[in-house]
């Protein structure tokens, strides 16, 4: 993925941890959190964010927008089973993105299916292309 595609668009989504918004500092986390892998792509009039958050209950996922910063977080479920052989555990998840001005922050939809969180970030009306009709004078 060429990084320039992100920079060239106005409605870019850039990872960020600005000072003004609550962030979890790497060294001060109470629990082990993982930064989930994401796919971000454009469809007509919207930006789609897909994040792999396997093993969570819907009520433990939180998606929050504050001061143009989108925060995705998931609380690790309590695991009581005893495993004979173990390669993974369900961690907490946490990742933040800065939203560009083209995103309509009041029009964000989220859905959790098969362990994947899908966010639908619609572009603001003002950001949509507009055809200007030229009147013949």
């Amino acid at each position, binding site marked *: 993925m060429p990084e320039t595609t992100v920079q060239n668009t106005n409605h870019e989504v850039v990872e960020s941890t600005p000072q003004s918004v609550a962030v979890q500092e790497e060294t001060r986390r109470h629990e082990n959190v993982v930064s989930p892998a994401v*796919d971000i792509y*454009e469809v007509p009039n919207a930006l789609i964010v897909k994040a*792999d958050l396997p093993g969570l209950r819907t009520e433990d996922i939180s998606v929050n927008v504050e001061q143009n910063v989108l925060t995705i977080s998931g609380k690790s479920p309590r695991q009581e089973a005893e*495993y004979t052989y*173990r390669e*993974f555990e369900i961690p907490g998840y946490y990742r933040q993105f800065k939203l560009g001005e083209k995103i309509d922050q009041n029009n964000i939809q989220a859905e959790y299916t*098969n*362990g994947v969180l899908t966010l639908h970030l619609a572009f603001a009306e003002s950001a949509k292309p507009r055809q200007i009709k030229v009147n013949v004078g």
Partner: protein
Amino acid sequence: MSTYDPIREFNTIRREFEQLFNAFNPVAARTAFLPSLSARAYPSLNIQDTRDDYVVEALAPGLDASKLDITVQNNKLTIRGEKVSPAENLKPEDWHRNERATGRFLRSFNLPTPVDADRVSAEYKNGILRITLPKREEAKPRQIAVSIA
């Protein structure tokens, strides 16, 4: 007695080392330190050994459950599937980030005791594939009553 297989011997040693590290520090051993074959295998598996069943959990978000292929043959559990791209026909310039890996995968695992292949069940929920493999009668632990003479 089976034939000598140096690869299997090596795998056994590796697994024992892993278990040793896991015993001391379960988190560090699974992360960057000494990434081993099992760290790269997909999907990651957790296995519970209950009295009646083996319960295998696989960490595999975003799959199409109907296309999963799970087989059990000679105590060998095989999971096959494919994680597809969310948007196949997208123009390259429409991608901002593409971190989620896609592609076909296959993983198999040898179970230590015979299982009843006809009664194996699987469910896929929240990105975790959970396969329950009932042990065969002869493999279940048996309580031996001690009679007092």
